[in-house]
């Protein structure tokens, strides 16, 4: 039997985000391959919510997602480290005061 005379189409990759219950954040749960957005939602439904894990789904083309690089982590996130005054615990009050 001959295989793959022509490069096989597996369609493009879509990232899938599922909201598990009302009010919850959408959480990334994996990816699907699909030719268009309708089929991407259908596949995401079949693949990631077979046991009522979701009430709403987002799909978006993986190629359209912009992500930071791990090498940028220090320059992006370190500046937050010395700004302890942004946390409520920074502020101490005399005993007996309830906030």
């Amino acid at each position: 039997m001959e295989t793959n005379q022509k490069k096989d189409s597996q369609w493009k990759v879509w990232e899938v985000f599922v909201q598990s219950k009302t009010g919850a954040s959408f959480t990334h749960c994996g990816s699907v391959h699909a030719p268009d957005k309708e089929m991407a939602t259908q596949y995401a439904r079949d693949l990631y919510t077979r046991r009522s894990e979701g009430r709403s789904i987002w799909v978006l083309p993986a190629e359209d997602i912009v992500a930071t690089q791990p090498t940028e982590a220090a320059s992006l996130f370190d500046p937050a480290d010395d700004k302890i005054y942004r946390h409520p615990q920074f502020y101490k009050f005399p005993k007996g005061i309830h906030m």
Partner: protein
Amino acid sequence: METLEKKSVAEDPILEEAFMTRLLNGEKIEPKEWMPENYRKQLTRMMSQHAHSEVIGMQPEANWITRAPSLLRKVILLAKIQDEGGHGLYLYGSTETLGTDRSELIEQLHEGKAKYSSVFNYPTLNWADIGAIGWLVDGAAIVNQTMLAKTSYGPYSRAMLRICKEEGFHNRQGYDLMIAMMRGTKEQQEMAQDAMNRWWWPALMMFGPHDKNSSNTIELMKYRIKLESNDDLRQQFIDRTIPQAEIIGLTIPDPNLKFNKETGHYETSDINWDEFFNVIRGKGPCNKQRMHNHIQAHEEGKWVREAAEAYASKHKQL
């Protein structure tokens, strides 16, 4: 996001040392982070083999869908097989984050360059085989996958967590089927015992060769891809499964089986490794059929994939 372009970073001892420190601290490695080429290679090999196993594993069970003895057993079996297809897709998706796409992985399977679990090369000869597969084969898979949920590669670990949640159903429906058979007629009990006799040893082989003969295990454990050895995992499976067999009246097909009171573990005869390597080398009872079916389904579905693609691009233009 969990997609990435293949990076060709030359091996660097400083980066490698920092990477090993991260592993020792129990950190998870994410797709775009630096990793040794060998880590990427071992993971791609192991995860794609795992994905192929899920998908090929649908065949022996699908053999009984049309002959399930009741509508309930039929919908259970269909749901179970659909889950296995889903497991394959989770795992292909996670493997792709390492830089090899799904079409290439499937090509490797079809060309015989990638393996799948040898257990799926055995035939399902009677209805009780469906019970034995869920109980023993999925039971062995759970032991392995519970360990893999703690693996060092983030996307693999997350796929495993999702899979483990679904495996409980697979395992229990199988054992439930075996109980039903053992409560049935003498003929049904014999069918259950026959299935037990044929699936016990292949299930033990699923954990792979003894530690001393498994070169991959050492490297996989060094990279914390695997956290426990083949023999340790196999022993866990043996210890938890034997009491389950005994309580429903099934006999383990091993005349040398005994419980060692000092160690608290069961001891079994040694596995027939000639059989194991024969099946891996393609000489199992169903290897040819399994591959033939997979290739055929893939080729016959080609026009559907192309038509859907054509439809999608036409609608984009409108």
